[in-house]
């Protein structure tokens, strides 16, 4: 227990600060990914001339490992576009690129899953296509696709462990730093793993509860 108090209890504030960064990166990445994914999905479905670039972006996000994207965004984008300017920004950007591809396909499946009759009913009431999309279609997509959309948040949290590689001070980064200071990998890394598992487990149960309730209420 001596070791535990020296390495864990004394440095627990650092681990918690790291956990806060992990959640911060994940939330920003997820919000950006949802908006970007929705945009990509709309461009792919309704903007003919930009269809192929959108498909390319989506497939790139879906078919490259997050670690590779992270390195790519962090080392190549600043020279190409002059952005992102910090590792934190690079971290959430890479996570968002990855998830936006998956989410775009989820949204597309959801939109295509809404029955034609819904569109026709809205049109016959004189609603414009944009209004129909907003008021009728997207609401249903939000309900039917909420399990996949919210599970993508778990994927983001799990992938966010990798942002430590580009020195974003998240939980994993703090854990590896403490390990190299104290040389006590057993305690530090095990506690870290436990923290991650606890966070993901709690989140996944919350999501399951919430989506079950949503489904009960609307279907």
């Amino acid at each position: 227990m001596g070791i535990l108090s020296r390495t864990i209890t004394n440095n627990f504030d650092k681990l918690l600060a790291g956990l806060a960064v992990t959640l911060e990166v994940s939330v920003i990445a997820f919000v950006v990914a949802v908006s970007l994914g929705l945009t990509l999905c709309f461009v792919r479905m309704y903007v003919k001339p930009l269809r192929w670039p959108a498909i390319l972006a989506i497939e790139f996000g879906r078919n490259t490992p997050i670690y590779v994207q992270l390195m790519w965004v962090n080392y190549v984008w600043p020279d190409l576009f002059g952005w992102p300017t910090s590792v934190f920004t690079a971290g959430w950007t890479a996570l968002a690129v990855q998830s936006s591809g998956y989410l775009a396909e989820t949204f597309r499946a959801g939109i295509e899953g809404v029955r034609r009759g819904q569109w026709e009913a809205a049109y016959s009431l004189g609603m414009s296509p944009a209004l129909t999309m907003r008021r009728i279609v997207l609401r249903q997509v939000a309900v039917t696709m909420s399990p996949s959309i919210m599970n993508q948040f778990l994927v983001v949290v799990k992938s966010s462990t990798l942002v430590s590689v580009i020195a974003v001070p998240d939980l994993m980064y703090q854990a590896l730093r403490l390990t190299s200071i104290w040389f006590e990998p057993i305690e530090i890394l095990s506690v870290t793993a436990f923290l991650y598992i606890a966070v993901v487990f709690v989140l996944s149960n919350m999501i399951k509860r919430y989506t079950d309730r949503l489904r009960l209420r609307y279907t």
Partner: protein
Amino acid sequence: MSLENLRLALDVSVFWEYRRLLLAGLAVNFYVFALAAVLAIALGFPACLLRLHRWRPLQWLGTGYAEFFRNTPEYVFLIWVHFVLPLLISALIATKVNFPPLLSAVLALGFSYSGYFTETFRAGILAVPRGHLEAGRALGMPRRLILWRITLPQAARQMLPEAMNQLVSLFKATSIISLITVPDIMYQVVQITSTEMKPLPLYSSAAFVYFLVIFAMSTLVRWVTEGWRTRGWA
């Protein structure tokens, strides 16, 4: 965005210069992928049978196993297996043990993905209609025979598409093994970048190579499984 930098990013000559190393790295990716896939399937199958066992405590064990590995981030687990597990084993058997990076990589990815495979197998087995099992029982077949002759052949077809998608994900996950110095393609790219100081073309080409390989794999999976679906197979 500067044109000079764009030209640099598209300049693959550095990448071409090191093609031998990079191909060797990609081969390591495939090697780890194959071993981890075998391990994941070998572990996922018994765990799935535990989850579906009649006896409650065994069910909990199987569920706990699957949940544990599904909820652990792969990178955290990889680091844990590489740096903590050997120490624990050393303490247990009182001799110094070290894991070579390759072994850690295979163990970590194999165990991580066995959680996903447990769920995939379970979904496949549950998709077999109950009536088929009851028919087997009515014919007087023992449980084990029902499992091997009736449940598993049908479940295998049901779960193949999903299992193949999991395998593609597993291949994607092999990119992180470079972080514990397994000499895979990403490891080589990082090494070459640190000597050549040309991150633009190297990282871009690495991303492109990964994209090509994984896109080819997932397209193949889609193509094959669509064929099965249209034949009513899966």
